[in-house]
């Protein structure tokens, strides 16, 4: 009765072999892990980044993958919480990925960068706070400009084109907002511009009436608004209600597609510098936008482009190495110039420096009749 049928034994052996074979098969893929803000205050950021990355992966896999290997990605939700992001990055490192994508919030990047640096795994992220690439991390790479690149351009724009003498600054009290405020303050003071009001706000704040009253009372020549997308939309509505007529200047988070959608007419007239935008008069970006809209049925903001570019940066660096070497990837990304003529997915020529900062074209834009219009293309700093 107790004698096992030989067929059962072979079945067990076969199943065991299949289990062993499964991980071996997985190693044949380029394994990426993304940690992003898929819920919470940064859901717009994280969702766009994720969708952009997924689109690039689908395109690359359709053409045979990276060096003949298909890309596999796992997305983890940081809930826009730096503490959760740190835990998830540790989990991602334990899963031995080829590279890590995200997070998008600078605060979350700041608390995770040491982990990826210690593990020697490339972290291609969306944070823009100036200090991120000054922390001495060896494996951290941006997908957009840091504030040390974008804020001087905004300061120059305020002085040379808007011709202001004083500016009120409204910023969100997190790593992103504070970094932008600190960097721009220095740039404005160096140019002799008076900061008439310096107003911090909180992410998720319900009422902006008091902040806007302070802006109005300060009577500056322009207002610089540097908040996350949702708060940007809400404060724009409040500013319009307060009948403030001076130019409203900002960065990508003020002129983004999501802000325009949420703020409606209140976004009209907003101006500023945008590092990445789907409204850019660049054929490759227009093609990306078209493909993205077809796939997801909405127009992405700059975070969608960041996610998309992160994958093509990894692809270009891997092809430069000629092999899939996770430990060698950070070095391959450093001092890498990727030309759009050779790698169309990179959309615009870009140079990644030793610290993981980027240099490429950027844009000045304005929201007109609910659409972002590019008024000027600013060239790369170093040719």
């Amino acid at each position, binding site marked *: 009765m107790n004698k096992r049928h030989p067929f059962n034994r072979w079945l067990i052996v076969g199943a065991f072999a299949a289990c062993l074979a499964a991980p071996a098969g997985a190693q044949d893929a380029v394994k990426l892990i993304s940690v992003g803000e898929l819920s919470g205050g940064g*859901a717009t950021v994280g969702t766009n980044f994720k969708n952009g990355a997924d689109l690039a992966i689908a395109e690359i896999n359709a053409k045979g993958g990276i060096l003949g290997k298909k890309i596999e990605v796992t997305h983890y939700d940081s809930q826009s919480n730096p503490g959760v992001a740190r835990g998830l990055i540790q989990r991602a490192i334990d899963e031995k990925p080829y590279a890590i994508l995200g997070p998008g919030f600078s605060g979350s990047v700041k608390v995770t960068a040491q982990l990826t640096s210690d593990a020697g795994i490339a972290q291609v992220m969306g944070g823009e706070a100036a200090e991120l690439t000054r922390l001495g991390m060896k494996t951290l790479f941006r997908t957009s400009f840091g504030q040390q690149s974008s804020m001087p351009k905004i300061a120059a724009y305020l002085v040379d084109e808007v011709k202001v003498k004083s500016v009120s600054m409204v910023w969100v009290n997190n790593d992103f907002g504070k970094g932008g405020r600190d960097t721009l303050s220095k740039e404005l003071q160096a140019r002799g511009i008076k900061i008439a009001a310096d107003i911090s706000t909180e992410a998720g704040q*319900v009422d902006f009436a008091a902040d806007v009253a302070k802006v109005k009372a300060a009577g500056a020549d322009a207002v610089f608004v540097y908040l996350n997308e949702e708060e940007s939309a809400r404060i724009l*509505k409040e500013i*319009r*209600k*307060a009948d403030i007529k001076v130019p409203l200047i900002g960065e990508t988070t003020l002129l983004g597609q999501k802000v325009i959608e*949420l703020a*409606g007419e*209140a976004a009209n007239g907003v101006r500023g510098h945008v590092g990445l935008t789907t409204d850019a008069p660049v054929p490759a970006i227009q093609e990306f936008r078209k493909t993205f809209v077809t796939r997801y049925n909405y127009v992405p903001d700059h975070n969608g482009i960041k996610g998309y570019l992160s994958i093509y940066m990894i692809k270009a660096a891997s092809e430069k190495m000629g092999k899939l070497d996770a430990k060698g990837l950070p070095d391959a990304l450093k001092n890498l110039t990727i030309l759009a003529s050779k790698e169309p997915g990179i959309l615009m020529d870009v140079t990644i420096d030793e610290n993981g900062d980027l240099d490429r074209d950027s844009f000045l834009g304005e929201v007109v009749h609910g659409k972002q219009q590019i008024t000027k293309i600013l060239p790369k700093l170093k040719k």
Partner: protein
Amino acid sequence: MASFMSLVIAGLATGAIYALIAIGFSLLWQTSQTINFAQGEFVMLPAFFVLAAINAGAPFWLAALIGLVISVIILGAMFKRLLVDPMLRHGVLPLAIATMALSIFLRESVKEFYSAEASPFPSFIPGTTIGFAGISVSLQHVGVVLVAIASVMALTALLDRTPIGRQMQACAQNPDVARILGIPVERMIMYTFLINGLLVGIASLLVSPIYLAKFSSGETLGLAAFIAAIVGGFNRIRGAIAGGFLLGIADNLAAAYVSTQYRGAVPLFLLIAVILLRPQGLFGKAEERTV
């Protein structure tokens, strides 16, 4: 002075929304000893009922009406029948924990089935500014205050001037005696849940054009309204109203004249001060319970 008045009016508008939500806390507590920690999510959800109706092709006024009706049914009647009734017999604490679980469930469901991103929400009141006695005032803020005051007045009239309202008050004061007097206590309690469903629906229509429709918006609103209810007096509707207005105005004035950085601490300072100096709340009455 003009700036001060504008800030007070904006604070009144925010406070009016807190008050509508806080009244719900007070109503449910008085009639059924229910502390609904999902009250913030109850304000978030009707906005998505309305957006779903708009996406299905309904004009805004009809979508708003549909949203209110669904709120009354789901957040009023079904909430009582499916969650409060089975849990309340086990005590206040299990019910409070169940409402916490419900808040998470509602948040995650909206995120999963609608979107994790904020959505714009239409408004009945235009966002234009009007000049009045040298003060520049947002029509939307004025409209929010007026609608909220009208809702509170209607509720007060219902409670004070109708037989049903007086029966509801009797149930709140002493359900056993009310039952002996032949008042259908269970039905009266159900009415308070339906009223709460309507109030959160109205609050949602008022706040969503300003705060946007988002799955997580209930967290901030629910917490602020809970603090407002405690500050004003948890067992008095007029206390909840006063607490809401006080919180809205104090938040705005503190941000404008003290510090924007510490504005988040203002409600908590108020809460601590009230608990230390007048535990029953500004307009509440002290209650004793046998344990």
